[in-house]
C-alpha cells in the first residue's frame, strides 16, 4: 500500500500549495480617469502588448422585436468605417498597426476585446475611439456584412448543437427575451438598416453601463488619459425599458427535432440560481463534482469512462442577469440516447439524495483553489477575468478572497445545495437526431 501513502502525501501537499499560491502574483489597481471613467489595471511590462477588455451592460435581450440580431449585426460593423475613414481606410490602418479588435454581443453584455502592440498604442487607441464613437454604417459594407450574417444564420440553423440549445431555451423560458433568436434570423437580418444600427449604437454605448479591464505595459496615469480619449466622448446614459425577470418553467418535458444523423445531441437542464445567490459558492462546488470539467466528474465517470457512451458530457450552473439555469449536454449514438439520459437522471438523483463524499469535496477544493492561478496566465486572460469579475459585481479584492471562499465550503453545505438544486425528475430535455429509448 505504499502507493496509497504516496498519494496521500501528494494530496496533503496540495492543500498547502493551494493556500500558498492563492496570494496572487499581480496587483490590481482601480484607475479613475480625469474625466471620471474607472478601469481595473494590472501593469505588466514583460511583453510589449496591452490588452483592454470592456463591456456595456445590456446585451442583445434589448434588441427590438422584429429586429432580433441587431446587436450581433453591430459587432460586424464596427471595423467597417468610422469618422473620416471609409471601411477600406480603417482596415488598412488597422492592419498596418496590427491591433486586434473584436466585439461580442451576449445576452446581458455587449463586449469588446482590444489588443495593441505597446509601440503602436497611441494610433491604435485613436482608431478604437473612432470605432466605438463614430461608426459609419455605409451602404457598401452594410450590405456585404449582411450577406455574411445571413450565411452565418443559415449555417447555425443547420448546426445540431445550436438547434438543440435553442429549442431547450424555448421550452425552459417560453416567450422570454432570452429565448428569442438573439443572433437574428434570415428575415430580421434582411430587415435591419443603418437606422436600426444607429439606434442600437446609441442604446448600447453609454458611460453609465461601461466596465473596463486593462492589462499590459501601461501605467495608471497614461491609462487615465486613454480612458478619456476612447470613452470620454460617449453619452453619459441612455434610457431603455427594463426587461422583467425571466420566469422559467420546469419539466419533465422532452422535445425531439428529428434529423438523419448518426448521433443524438442532447441538451438537458432546468432552472437554478443566479450569481448573487448567497449559496452560489457551495452550489458551484457541488456542480463541479457532478458535471465539471476534467476527467473526474461523476457524470464523466459513469457515462464516458465506465461505459464509453459519449466523448464528452458536462453540466453546470449558467447564471445570467435575469435568470439562473443549470444546463448540461452530451452526444451519443442514437441507439444509446435513452440509456445515456437515464444515467444522467440516475447520477443526478444519487447526488441529490446523498451528496458527494468528503473525499470528493476535498479533491474538488484542491483542484478549484490550485487551478485558479491558471486562469491568469496571459495578459489577455487576466483582462478577460477582471472584466468578468466587474460584470458580476464581485469586488476588486475577489481574486484574493476567492480561494478562501472555496476552502470554507462544508460537506453539509454541498449536500444541502445538491438537494435544493437538482431535480432529475423535472428535467427539460431537447434532442436533435433519431434518438431511441426516450419515453
Amino acid at each position, binding site marked *: 500500500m505504499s*502507493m496509497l501513502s504516496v*498519494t496521500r502525501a*501528494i494530496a496533503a*501537499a496540495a492543500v498547502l*500549495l*493551494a493556500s*500558498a*499560491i492563492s496570494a496572487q*502574483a*499581480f496587483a490590481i489597481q482601480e484607475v479613475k480617469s480625469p474625466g471620471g471613467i474607472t478601469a481595473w489595471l494590472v501593469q*505588466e511590462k514583460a*511583453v*510589449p*502588448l496591452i*490588452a483592454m477588455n470592456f463591456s456595456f451592460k445590456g446585451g442583445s435581450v434589448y434588441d427590438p422585436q422584429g429586429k432580433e440580431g441587431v446587436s450581433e449585426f453591430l459587432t460586424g460593423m464596427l471595423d*467597417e468605417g468610422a469618422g473620416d475613414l471609409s471601411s477600406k481606410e480603417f*482596415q*488598412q490602418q488597422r*492592419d*498596418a*498597426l*496590427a491591433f*486586434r479588435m473584436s466585439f461580442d454581443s451576449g445576452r446581458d453584455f455587449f463586449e469588446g476585446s482590444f489588443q495593441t*502592440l505597446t509601440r503602436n498604442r497611441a494610433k491604435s487607441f485613436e482608431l478604437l475611439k473612432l470605432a466605438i464613437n463614430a461608426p459609419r454604417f455605409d451602404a457598401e459594407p452594410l450590405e*456585404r*456584412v449582411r*450577406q*455574411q*450574417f445571413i*450565411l*452565418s444564420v*443559415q*449555417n447555425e*440553423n*443547420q448546426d*445540431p448543437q445550436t438547434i438543440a440549445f435553442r429549442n431547450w431555451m424555448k421550452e425552459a423560458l417560453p416567450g422570454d427575451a432570452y429565448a428569442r433568436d438573439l443572433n437574428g434570423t434570415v428575415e430580421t437580418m434582411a430587415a435591419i438598416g443603418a437606422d436600426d444600427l444607429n439606434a442600437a449604437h446609441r442604446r448600447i454605448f453609454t458611460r453609465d453601463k461601461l466596465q473596463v479591464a486593462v492589462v499590459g505595459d501601461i501605467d495608471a496615469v497614461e491609462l487615465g488619459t486613454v480612458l478619456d480619449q476612447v470613452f470620454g466622448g460617449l453619452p453619459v446614459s441612455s434610457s431603455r425599458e427594463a426587461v422583467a425577470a425571466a420566469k422559467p418553467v420546469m419539466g419533465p418535458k422532452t422535445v425531439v427535432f428529428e434529423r*438523419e*444523423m*448518426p*448521433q443524438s445531441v442532447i441538451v438537458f437542464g432546468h432552472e437554478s440560481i443566479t450569481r448573487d445567490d448567497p449559496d452560489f459558492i457551495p452550489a458551484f462546488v457541488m456542480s463541479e463534482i457532478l458535471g465539471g470539467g476534467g*476527467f*473526474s466528474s461523476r457524470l464523466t465517470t459513469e457515462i*464516458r*469512462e465506465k*461505459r*464509453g*457512451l459519449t*466523448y464528452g458530457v458536462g453540466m453546470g450552473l449558467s447564471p445570467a442577469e435575469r435568470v439562473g439555469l443549470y444546463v448540461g449536454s452530451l*452526444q451519443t*449514438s442514437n441507439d444509446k440516447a435513452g440509456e445515456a439520459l437515464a444515467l444522467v437522471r440516475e447520477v443526478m438523483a444519487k447526488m441529490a439524495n446523498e451528496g458527494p463524499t468528503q473525499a470528493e469535496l476535498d*479533491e474538488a477544493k*484542491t*483542484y478549484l483553489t*490550485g*487551478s485558479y*492561478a*491558471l486562469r491568469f*496566465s*496571459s495578459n*489577455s486572460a487576466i483582462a478577460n477575468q477582471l472584466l468578468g469579475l466587474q460584470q458580476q459585481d464581485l469586488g476588486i479584492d475577489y481574486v484574493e478572497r476567492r480561494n478562501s471562499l472555496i476552502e470554507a465550503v462544508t460537506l453539509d453545505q454541498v449536500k444541502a445545495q445538491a438537494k435544493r438544486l437538482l431535480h432529475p425528475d423535472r428535467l427539460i430535455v431537447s434532442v436533435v437526431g433519431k434518438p431511441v429509448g426516450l419515453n
Partner: protein
Amino acid sequence: MIFRARLILIIVLTIILGAPARALDIDVTSFTLANGMEVVVIPDRRAPVVTHMVWYKVGAADEPQGKAGIAHLLEHLMFKGTPKYPEGEFSRIVRANGGDENAFTSQDYTAYFQRIARERLELVMELEADRMHNLVLTDENVLPERSVVQEERRERTDNDPSSLLAEQLDAALYTAHPYGKPVIGWMSEVAQLTRQDALDFYAEHYEPANAVLVVAGDVTGDEVKLLAERHYGPLKNRRPPEARVRTQEPAPVAERRVIMRDERVSSPLWQRRYLTASSRNLSRREDHALSLLADVLGGGTQSRLHQKLTLEKKLAAYAGAWSSTDSLDSGSFAIYAAPNPGASTAEIEKVIDEELALIRDKGISQEELDRTRDRSIAEAAYVLDSQESLARIFGVALTTGQSIGNVMNWERDLAAVTVEDVAKAARTVLDLRASVTGLLLPANGS
C-alpha cells in the same frame, strides 16, 4: 467583417497552430539528455505556473496498415494507469494539485501536457515519465475507451458535413501517402482495434529518444535540467529509434475534384488544396515565400481574394488562403471561399482561377510584399502572450524535422524573402495536377 462560419474557425485555428513561429524575442534553452530525449525550456515569469509537455515523434501517419486510428486511441489509453499509479490516479493527482491536462494527436506527433503551479513541475514529470514505459491495459478499460473514440468520431466528423468533406479531400489528395487517412481513423478500422494493437504501437514508439520535452513558464533551464535528468534521465531506450519512413507520394499527374451534397448543408463552400513540400524539405526562403504568397492571396482584408471576390465582384461572403508546411513529409497550400446567396461555386472558381493565373504569371509587387511581411512581423508579438502557444510552436517544429533555429530565426529568414522568391513559389505550388478541388453543396443545390 465577421468570421463565424465553422470552416473559417477551423482554418484560423490551423493557421495559428500550423504557421511557423513568429519572431521570438525570448531566451530559450535547449539540451539533450544522455538517453536522447530533447528538452526545450521557454521562460515566462509573469505567473507562478508552468506548461509541461511531452511530445512523441509518432502520429497517425506512422500506423501499420489496417490499424487507422491506433495512434489516437493510444493517446486516450495513456490515461489508463500503471502499476505505480493505477487507473484514474494520473488525472486525479493532477487535479488534486490544481492542474489541468490534456493530450492531442496529429499525423506526425502525439503530445501530452499539463498546466500547473511551478512547484508541482516535478510531480507531473514523475507521472509523465512513469507512463512512458509502464502503461497497463486491460480489455475492461480498452473497450469502453474505444467506444468513446467512436463517439468522438461521430461527434466531430460524421455529424458534420464539412468535416466529412475535409476527410475526403485528404483521401483524394494523397494517393499513397498515409496523410490520406484521417487521424481519428476510419470507423471500420477503429471498431476493430484491440488492446494488443495499442500495446504494440506503444512498445514501438514510446521511448525517450523518440520524445521531446517542452517546458514553458516560471522556471529556468537549470531547474528543468535537474528535474528532467532525475525523472526522464533514467529511462532506457528499449529499442533503437528508427527512421520515420512512410510510403512516398508519387509525382502527381491528375487534377482531382470531390463533390459532396448533404441535406445538412445550407450554403455552398468552395475550397482547393495543393500539395507542397514540407518545411524540412524547403529552404527557409522557399518556406517563407509560401506563407507570404498565402497572405498576399488570402490573408485578411487587404488580400487579393478578399479585394476581388468580396469587395469588387461581391461574389463571396468571405475568401482566403493559407499555407501549412509544419509536417514531416508534405504540406498544404489551401484556398477557400463561400459564395454569397445567389452566387455559384462555378462563378467563384472562375474568378479564383483568374487570380491564381495572374499571380503565377506576374508575381507580386514589392509594396505587397513589404506590407504583408510588416504585418506578419508586427502580429508576431501576440504569440508572446501565451506560454502554451509558444510551447506548441517548439513541439511541432521538433517533431516535424525542423530545428529550434528555424523558430528563433523566423524574422531574419522572413526578411530575406524577395518578390522573385514569392513568384517562384507561386509557379511551383499552383499546379492543378497536384490539387484537389472540393465542393460542399446543399442536397438539392447546383
